[in-house]
Structure formats: C-alpha cells, structure tokens
C-alpha cells in the first residue's frame, strides 16, 4: 500500500521560534537528519513523535500536521 502523505509545518514553526534542527532533534531525542526528512515530508512520524513535536512548539498537533497541504502564507484560503 502506498504511503499517504502527511504535510507538516515544522520548518515554519522552527524558523519562527529560531530553533535549529540540532536543538529540535536533541529535544525530541532523534537524529538531526530525521528532523530534515520530516520537514521535507520524506518521513511521516509516529503518533508519539508527532505529539511530542506539537508539545515542543506548544501548539495543537493539527497546527503542525495535516493530511491536506497547508495554505501558503498570504493566501486567502
């Protein structure tokens, strides 16, 4: 079965908070490359990791992850 894409805003949130990949990775207990693969959408995290990422940014999980693409900044939808 082909894997369904899961879209995320980790890169946006990370840039907004001024957190480096290595710092986020250290906080989550994953390799820093894993953060890069997550941001690129090449790896979909487990539910546990997704919840921990949302917890790290102190936002609800649906703010970080979605099954549909997030609207681009400045778009009206």
């Amino acid at each position, binding site marked *: 079965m082909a894997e369904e894409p899961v879209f995320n805003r980790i890169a946006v949130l990370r840039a907004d908070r001024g957190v*480096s*990949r*290595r710092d986020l990775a250290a906080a989550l*207990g*994953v*390799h*820093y*490359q*894993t953060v*890069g*693969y997550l*941001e*690129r959408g*090449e*790896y979909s*995290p*487990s539910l546990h*990791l997704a919840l921990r990422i949302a917890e790290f940014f102190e936002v609800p999980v649906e703010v970080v992850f979605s099954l549909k693409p997030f609207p681009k900044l400045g778009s009206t939808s």
Partner: protein
Amino acid sequence: MNWGERWHAHAARSMEHPMFVPLYRTRARRRLLVAVGATGLLVIWADAIVSWYIAPSDTAVTVNFVLLTIALVCYLPSVTALNAATRGLASLPERRLDERQIAERLRAYTVANTLMRLILTVVTALVLAAMWGDGPAARVPGAAIALGLIAVWLTHYVLPLLVAGWRLPDPPPDDDPGDEQ
C-alpha cells in the same frame, strides 16, 4: 557506562566525522560504494570457486592471497564509508537509533533477507549441479568449503548495509551552520 556502551558511543561519534562526507555526499557516490563493496563480496565467492578447482596446491595459496587482498581492499573502505553514510543504521544497537532509522533498518533487513534467499537458492543449485556425477568437481577441498562459508557469512552480514546505502536518499540541505551532512 560499560565497555559495550562506550564502544557504541564511540562508533556513533565516529560516524558523524566529516572526514567521510566527500565519499558519500551524493547518491551516485553512495551507490558506487555499494558496487565496490559488492565487488569485494563477489571476489570472495570467486575465490571459493577457484579453490574448489585448484586447491590444494601452491597456485591455490597464491591465488587465495591475491583474491582475498583484492576483496579486503574493496570491502573495508566501502563498508566503513557506508556505515558513516547511514549513521550506523545496520550496525548500531536499536536503542541508539531513532524511529526513522529503525524503520529504515527494518526495510533494509527485509530486502536483504529476500536477496539472501535468492543468493542461497542459486548457490545451492549451482553447487548441486557441479557435484552431479563422479567428476573431479564432486570432491570439494576444505579450503573451498571454508571460503564458501566465509562468503556466505560475510554476504549475510553486510547485505543489509549495502541495501541501506543503496536506498539512502540525499539528506535535506543544510539550513543551520552546524548541519553538515
């Protein structure tokens, strides 16, 4: 921290060393490393076959020495670089990997298991065919058996790493000063 933990910590740190990065920076280079490592394995298999036909003899000793040297020259650098490229995906204990790495390791092991099954099927069929009848090939020298077992063991041992190295996508571009590949 016990000696095992210290060794794994040292191995994990070594795999982050930038010295290896030029060797595996691109997918083409990683696949070339896989090809070189696979060549090393093939040379050991070839050595076992050659030994079957010419051992025991002085020529067999010389041929063994030359072929095993070629195999090691191919095998050791490629396996070292691939271990660094995959960050120990196939060699570190699971507790030192994160969930993405564990998932990728499982995929590599699955593919390697299928490949190993195919290899063993082909080798078994070829050995049985070669031993058919009462010719000179029906008598297998000890050196050929030993080299054959080494070839099987090494192939089984390193195949997951070769698969992981072949599959490895390019890492995300660096956006932080310290985010080198």
